[in-house]
């Protein structure tokens, strides 16, 4: 249906384009005046005025229609019902109504559901009808408005360019809207979570086991229950696990990445550089789920067998395996970024160092790296931020038990792993367990935000220095 309407709008506005172009030529030649812009612009002017409002209305309507109909039906349900129903039950009835309407309802059809489905059907047809009426009247109105302007020989080019600029500006606002959307969606659930669990208990508690949290109604928690609940949502083990695995990853990635960056920038011949750089960058293009599979299937079991030979107890989901593979993933980020910043160091610094008799490695160690240090620090920080936000490797290879440990051979868990484990499959929206995932997401978002901000600051400072 929407597609048909959209097609109609496109068709209509295309004909508007040709009509507008023809009309202005006719008017101006009849009145023997010059048009204020090229005839094409009058066509665009009419077509844009016809299409943009219509498409906007259509999009908004499509997005909001289900929500509004749901609200109306649920409102009806709760006002008709004598017994009090909680939101979850209302939601269930709503789902049943929709299933009945779609014809795939199984179970006993109660009077309530049958009525609801009839209501739903009528609401849908009302919505459909009013959508078309509103759309067409709006379209007529805006097109007429534009037509009136057109026959008075307006400055169509400027008007069209104004519209174009407005569209461009709106598109660039999407970035802001996305950020607002992220913060809104994370905050909304997190605030609900923090009304149940004290934010300090969440941030500084040392025991995490959300599967124990069975309480559904937050308002009826006794202090004893709260003490128990608090112990389910202490996120320190997750922070520690995340930092620990990221640390292992950085131990692998920083030396290898930095040294290969230096080698490629300073030593490698053009030919070596041409072939080895893309190969290393393949590592950055491989999906993380592939690394996860690799870590879980090859690296983890390898470490376990290796450890067994020396009588060591190694978990097959060890922090070491996950961290190591994550480190391999991060190598190209560090190597290509540090390659870039080293290349940006002016040649005159090197020449000066060579002139006083330093060898190449001495020049690199004493002159080039200190000069490039802010950029290198920035790239390492970006890599850290990537490591703590990395999900699939740790989900598949790092284990689920939240424990405070610094033994790399044991399994640990991370923030991202827990978010995935809590939200995988169906979840009730109003339990503290689900909300805790959003609280974790919020923490993660802010942690990476701060890291990125600092890193970008470093890189920017560095760039300004040599520009």
């Amino acid at each position, binding site marked *: 249906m929407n597609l048909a309407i959209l097609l109609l709008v496109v068709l209509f506005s295309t004909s508007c384009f040709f009509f507008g172009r023809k009309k202005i030529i006719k008017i101006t030649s009849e009145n023997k005046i010059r048009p204020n812009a090229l005839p094409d612009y009058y066509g665009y002017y009419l077509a844009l005025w016809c299409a943009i409002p219509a498409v906007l209305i259509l999009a908004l309507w499509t997005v909001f229609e289900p929500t509004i109909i749901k609200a109306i039906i649920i409102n009806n349900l709760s006002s008709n019902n004598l017994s009090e129903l909680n939101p979850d039950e209302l939601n269930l009835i709503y789902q049943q109504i929709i299933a009945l309407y779609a014809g795939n309802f199984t179970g006993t059809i109660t009077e309530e559901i049958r009525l609801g489905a009839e209501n739903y059907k009528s609401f849908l047809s009302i919505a459909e009808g009013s959508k078309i009426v509103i759309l067409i009247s709006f379209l007529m109105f805006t097109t007429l408005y534009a037509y009136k302007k057109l026959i008075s020989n307006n400055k169509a080019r400027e008007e069209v360019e104004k519209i174009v600029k407005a569209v461009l500006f709106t598109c660039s606002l*999407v970035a802001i809207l996305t950020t607002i959307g992220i913060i809104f969606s994370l905050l*909304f659930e997190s605030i609900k979570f923090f009304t149940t669990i004290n934010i300090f208990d969440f941030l500084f508690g040392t025991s995490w086991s959300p599967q124990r949290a069975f309480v559904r109604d937050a308002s009826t928690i006794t202090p004893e229950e709260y003490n128990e609940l608090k112990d389910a949502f202490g996120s320190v083990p997750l922070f520690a696990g995340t930092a620990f695995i990221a640390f292992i990853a950085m131990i692998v990635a920083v030396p290898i990445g930095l040294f*290969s960056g230096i080698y490629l920038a300073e*030593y490698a011949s053009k030919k070596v550089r041409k072939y080895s750089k893309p190969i290393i960058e393949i590592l950055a293009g491989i999906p993380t789920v*592939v690394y996860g599979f690799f870590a879980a299937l090859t690296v983890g079991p390898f470490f376990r067998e290796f450890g067994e030979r020396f009588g060591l107890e190694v978990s097959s989901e060890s922090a070491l395996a996950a961290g190591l593979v994550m480190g391999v993933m991060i190598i190209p980020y560090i190597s290509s970024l540090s390659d870039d910043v080293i290349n940006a160091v002016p040649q005159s610094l090197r020449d000066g160092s060579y002139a006083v008799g330093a060898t190449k*490695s001495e020049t690199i160690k004493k002159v080039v790296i200190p000069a490039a240090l802010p950029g290198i620090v920035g790239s390492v920080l970006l890599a850290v931020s990537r490591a703590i936000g990395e*999900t*699939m490797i740790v989900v598949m290879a790092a284990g689920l038990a939240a424990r405070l440990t610094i033994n790399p051979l044991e399994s640990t868990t991370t923030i991202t792993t827990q978010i995935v484990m809590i939200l995988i499959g169906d979840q009730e929206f109003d339990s503290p367990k689900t909300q805790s995932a959003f609280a974790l997401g919020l923490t993660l978002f802010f942690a990476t935000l701060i890291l990125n901000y600092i890193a970008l600051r470093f890189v920017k400072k560095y760039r300004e220095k040599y520009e």
Partner: protein
Amino acid sequence: MSKEELLKKRYRAEKRFKFYGLTSVILAILFVLFLVNVIFSKGKGAFSRTTISVEVDFNTEKLEIKNNPTNEEIQDTDFYDLSIESLLNVYKTKGLKEEKDLIRIFSPDYEFEIKNFIIENKGFLNKTTIIELTASDDIDQLNKGNYPRHLPEERRRISDFQLLIYDKLVEDNKIQKTFNTFLFTNGDSRDPELAGVGGSLLGSFFTIIVTLLLSFPIAILASIYLEEFAPKNRITDFIEININNLAAVPSIVFGLLGLGILLGTFDFPRSTPLVAGITLALMTLPRIIIPCRASLKAVPPSIREGALAVGASKVQSVTHHVVPLAIPGTLSGTIIGLAQALGETAPLILIGMVAFVVDLPSSPVDPSASLPVQVYLWSEQAERGFVEKTSATIMILLTFLITMNAFAVYLRQKFERRWS
């Protein structure tokens, strides 16, 4: 220390330093080769399928079917007895346990396979013919040499009797390896020998189309605004900070956004490519805007000034001259961004694309899986057959990614103009 010694020491340090650099580069390259090698050696088995020749007698009287049946009539006929009878003819059995063992060397869909065969080849009605039926996962793995048959019987899933049948079948040349078309056409399944990536291929395809349609136009328009028209003010700065930050926000946060807003607030359909596409579009947008802006920036100012000098307006100079010159760069940036989106898993898990979907999706609003999620799902399965299926899925995914990236590089090299 004498001068010569000192010099020698410095040269040694020089050599050492260079060696560290070279070792790092070689190590990184070795990682790539090792990874690719592991995946390929594990995954190549999944491209072949083991079948067992079975003689089937399509007697219409026994099937209680007319002589010239329509497809629907065959569909409605019960083929179970015929199938079991044909399977049991493969090897002489005594007792119920042995019969069960014999039937278990076939994949559980044997009845449908026989039925589909006769629907496609109606000429074989009332005739006896040999059909290739899919072998069960264990036999498949045994035939590919991945099965530890030397273990004692109680520690393997194949019984001694089944091994006996298998060896006899091999001797009689009744076991074949064919190209595994199921891998590309079937949806997900609990049986590894029947599971395929058809559903997730389509799911990924729809997802990427939605992502492309949303992110490409918005990204280009936004980057044109920021690069060409934006005045230097607070709003512009704020937009830029937002874009740079969003490009580095972990992908799982976008999954939470999709879950909270698209599924929670707007009631979009769960587990569908539509929601996945929107979520990934939001994630990819800043990652496309950044290269798009770079390629707009690479167009020299003289082009703009030339257009303005002959009387074009600012918008005309941008749309007629700057943008066409920047298109190859923006396209290659977009393709690389889409390749990243194609490999993204975590956000899709959060919006419910981990559902077990057997049917192939036919539109972006049908529930489906996607390639990377399929990798995750199958990697959690215990069956031996799923390991090679997972690796094969990775191979398919990597093929797509490499093709996309190569295409992006080709576009850039072929069409991009150098100005200096």
